[in-house]
């Protein structure tokens, strides 16, 4: 876990994973069926 905070690459991957998860949540709750 420390690697995700202490290296730029790790932090990049951590934030991207959180962001894609949040995007999936937004899609599931509000956008599914619209596309």
């Amino acid at each position, binding site marked *: 876990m420390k690697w995700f905070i202490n290296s*730029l690459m790790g*932090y990049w991957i951590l934030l991207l994973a959180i962001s894609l998860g949040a995007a999936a949540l937004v899609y599931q709750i509000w956008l599914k069926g619209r596309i």
Partner: protein
Amino acid sequence: MFEFLIAGITVPVFLLVLVGLTVGMVGGFIGVGGGYMVTPALIVFGFPGYMASGIDMTHIAGKGVVSSIRHRELGNIDWTLALTMIAGTMLGVELGVRVLVHFKGLGISAIVLLITSVVIMLSLFIYTQLETHRAHKKLDQLTREGKEIGREVQTSNLPTLFQSIPLSPIIRCRHARVIISMWVIVLVGTATGFLAGFLGVGGGFIRVPALVYVVGASTHIAVGTDLVEIAFSGSYGALRHSMEGNVDMMAVLFMIGGAMIGAQFGSIATAFVRGPAIRYILSYSLILATVGAILRLLYVMSGQNVEFLSLAAVMLTLGEMIFLCLFILSLVLFAVRHRAGKWVPDWVKSLVI
């Protein structure tokens, strides 16, 4: 939920405010309009394509003005550079649109556009990422040696090359601290305007690296100066789209509500970081937009049959907005902690002020 009578659809209001807020923050920080993120998002919400472009352009105009005012207060705008470049940009956009019409006549515009987008964004990403990585290492070294560092460090030799072109008139951009041939700036405006007109985007993601790596302006000045261009081009685009009836003003109002706050925060956030931090965020934005464009290219090439590709592109667009905002927010948070003498990761220390 709000019913947009002109567009004839119902959309949760907070999603529009959120898109305005996030893209406003990113735009104020890296100096882009964000059309490549907003237009696909609005289409996903159900707005027709032509209206998505109109709403996007109108909200970019408002956001551009707010960001420009804030960056002017921060001393990040060079008016000589901005006004000289606008002349070239207008010529370039006109040329780009004409070439686009030619390709449309040949019936291959969608694929040509996507391939061109991918090639340009990928090239810009690779160059920006490599140079910023070198600058970051240099910053780390200077920090370790305990030397005083300004807010900008860049390692490219290209600005020296372009500044040495002896073509009259040579102009002095006082704020940017650059002395360069006027024709180089006009050419940069024309080339970036051409690409913007051809690809149908504002062009901030091309102009900011061009201002840094060709003209030799600092990243902060490049961001502020580019936002002036965006305010001009966005206002003209908003006027044209409004005349064509492509704008739902209620949607614009909700988006601008979010963008006003986001753009101010993004602009102020630049005061907490050094140039390479802004270039890192710009390069991340470029690579995520490139992957999104590759997915859309594969979707078009598959005859629009593989729905997974279209869905993945949508998810990536939404994810990109959230990712860039989280990164900017965390950089500001790290900067505040660093100023207070609290613990921050080692890689952050040289990137924040």
